[in-house]
């Protein structure tokens, strides 16, 4: 694949406490704010405690889930004195770190989370072709040997993307489990500290001009959620995650594999026809959202080599429509040799489009 040149990732936001009882992020952000870590070589990092009220009460949220408040609709909705705290806060955060979709937004928003599910370390994002995020993912995978590192892709367009990380030009959540909510486990906190460090190191290297070679990475794309079996009248759950599925996030679930065990001991099996990868198995916060587990397809995604723009250089984009438009604009300005080079690149990228889009 042809190398892609991208703008530097010069403004990074590190957010914790988006859910007030997911303590690794809370403690990490608290420590950074205490030590006043801000300016680092080649990048500026803003550290944010997203939901201070929920953090203070050690609850996921006070009125509504903050991490569902970042759709365009919610961000642009009117605010009255009856507006839930978290919606007011989401608009504040959008002003601070966005506005979402605009050129002023943070280059990278990284949001720190924990899960009660046995998911190791996951980067969660809305795009499977954001090369910055995918290169960071690959870098983390290579640098962190103690824990499995995976990439989960929720296929949603930007305006429907509902989480805090969608506010930045690039963004993802770092989700680490298993950890009970309201608890800080030293090993999980160390893992998160290392993940953040390695991510910032990648950004530093990228911004200083280091090229990163392309290749292939595995991505899990979310397909569907599965709810608990529930009592028809009370809506109370009537089964628990089966012991053979509990803690087996990312172990392939095949048709007829056990999924639930009812309270009378009966096994309920997976009735889908396609084998899929389960994740967020028995996440505490998802009982109220009607999710016992989520299911994903695994795919191999090709990523191009990338490097940051040098001063004065204009980044090449891979959208063929944009490139053609650019070509037309630049054509009149470039001298013969330069134009020839652009044409060669344009031809190559057309043939590669099928591979990585």
């Amino acid at each position: 694949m042809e190398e892609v040149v991208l703008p530097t990732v010069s403004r990074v936001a590190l957010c914790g406490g988006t859910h007030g009882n997911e303590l690794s992020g809370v403690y990490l952000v608290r420590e950074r704010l205490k030590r006043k870590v801000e300016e680092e070589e080649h990048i500026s990092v803003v550290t944010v405690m997203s939901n201070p009220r929920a953090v203070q009460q050690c609850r996921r949220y006070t009125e509504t889930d903050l991490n569902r408040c970042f759709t365009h609709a919610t961000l642009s909705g009117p605010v009255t004195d009856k507006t839930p705290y978290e919606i007011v806060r989401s608009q504040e955060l959008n002003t601070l770190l966005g506005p979402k979709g605009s050129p002023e937004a943070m280059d990278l928003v990284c949001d720190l989370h924990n899960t009660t599910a046995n998911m190791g370390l996951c980067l969660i994002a809305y795009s499977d072709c954001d090369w910055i995020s995918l290169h960071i993912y690959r870098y983390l995978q290579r640098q962190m040997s103690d824990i499995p590192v995976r990439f989960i892709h929720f296929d949603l367009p930007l305006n429907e993307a509902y989480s805090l990380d969608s506010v930045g030009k690039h963004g993802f959540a770092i989700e680490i489990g298993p950890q009970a909510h309201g608890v800080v486990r030293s090993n999980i906190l160390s893992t998160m500290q290392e993940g953040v460090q390695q991510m910032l190191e990648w950004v530093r290297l990228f911004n200083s001009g280091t090229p990163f070679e392309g290749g292939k990475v595995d991505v899990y794309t979310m397909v569907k959620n599965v709810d608990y079996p529930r009592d028809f009248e009370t809506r109370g759950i009537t089964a628990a995650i089966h012991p053979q599925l509990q803690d087996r996030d990312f172990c392939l679930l095949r048709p007829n594999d056990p999924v639930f065990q009812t309270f009378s001991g009966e096994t309920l099996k997976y009735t889908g026809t396609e084998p899929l990868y389960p994740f967020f198995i028995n996440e505490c916060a998802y009982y109220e959202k009607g999710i016992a587990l989520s299911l994903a397809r695994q795919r191999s995604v090709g990523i191009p080599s990338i490097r940051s723009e040098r001063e004065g250089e204009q980044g090449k984009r891979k959208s063929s429509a944009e490139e053609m438009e650019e070509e037309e604009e630049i054509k009149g300005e470039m001298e013969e040799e330069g134009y020839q080079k652009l044409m060669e690149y344009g031809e190559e990228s057309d043939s590669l489009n099928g591979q990585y889009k």
Partner: protein
Amino acid sequence: MTSSTNVSCFHGARRVAIFGGTHGNEMSGVTLVNLWIQNGKEIQRKGVETKPFITNPRAVEKCTRYVDTDLNRAFTTENLSAPSGDDLPYEVQRAQQINEIFGPKGSPEAYDVIFDLHNTTSNMGCTLILESSKDHFNLQMMHYIKKAIAPDSCPVLLTEHPLLKYSTSRSVAKHPIGLEVGPQPQGVLRSNIFESMRVVLKHALDFIELFNEGLEFPPCTVDVFRVSEKMDYPRDTNGNIIAMVHPNLQDCDWEPLNPGDPMFQTFDGTTIRYEGAGTVYPTFINEAAYYEKQQAFVTTRRETLAAGAIKKA
């Protein structure tokens, strides 16, 4: 040692209650009790009235530990004798109601046995909680349960302590028994934890049935862990936690902690070591609900209690 002259005679255990949802987000107890309220066949035993009961329904509905104040600390003499009223915290009102139904605490009318079902984020396995070292009936029951689930273990935590003992919902009964099963996150139902609790309760009810049928239980000894000292997280002058449970101590409930062993780890990686006089056995290590109670873990000391022979009168 013969038992014929030294047998304590107890009245039959006729009225038994099983409490779930004393903490609304400890899901095994909530689920089991709701199940048994719908269909109580599993918990019926000859000659016993076994009543499953959700103690804190408002907290259960919100899936939170408590609404105003911790119900499992609310059964103090002061609270129970306070004039009732809507201005009292919800859980204090609830404690008074529970005391009326299952007590009064300390009186002959109180329920014979109450099992109180709890979960913990700590790696405590199936722990039985004993409030009095002189409760021979409970000691015999715990001895029976331990034998029944062997080789799996069932540690017994003795909370008899002038300062650390707390006024539990089960303390309304003549023979209160706490069941603490973990590790399980709050708000989560794990099927293995659920089944463990169910099995322990089954054996407990079997014991009661055998006792009521007239079986004499010979003298026995029970190894217990007596609560000793509450250990808080290291904090700064503003009260913020500055260190976490050390990775060497995390999940090591009931294992020996020796002087000099790692205990906490600060956020910059420094180890803080245990500086007690002798070996202790920590438990409730890193329980989520205890951060606000200033407790990282509690130390215990091993003790062997003797229970005399018992028989129904």
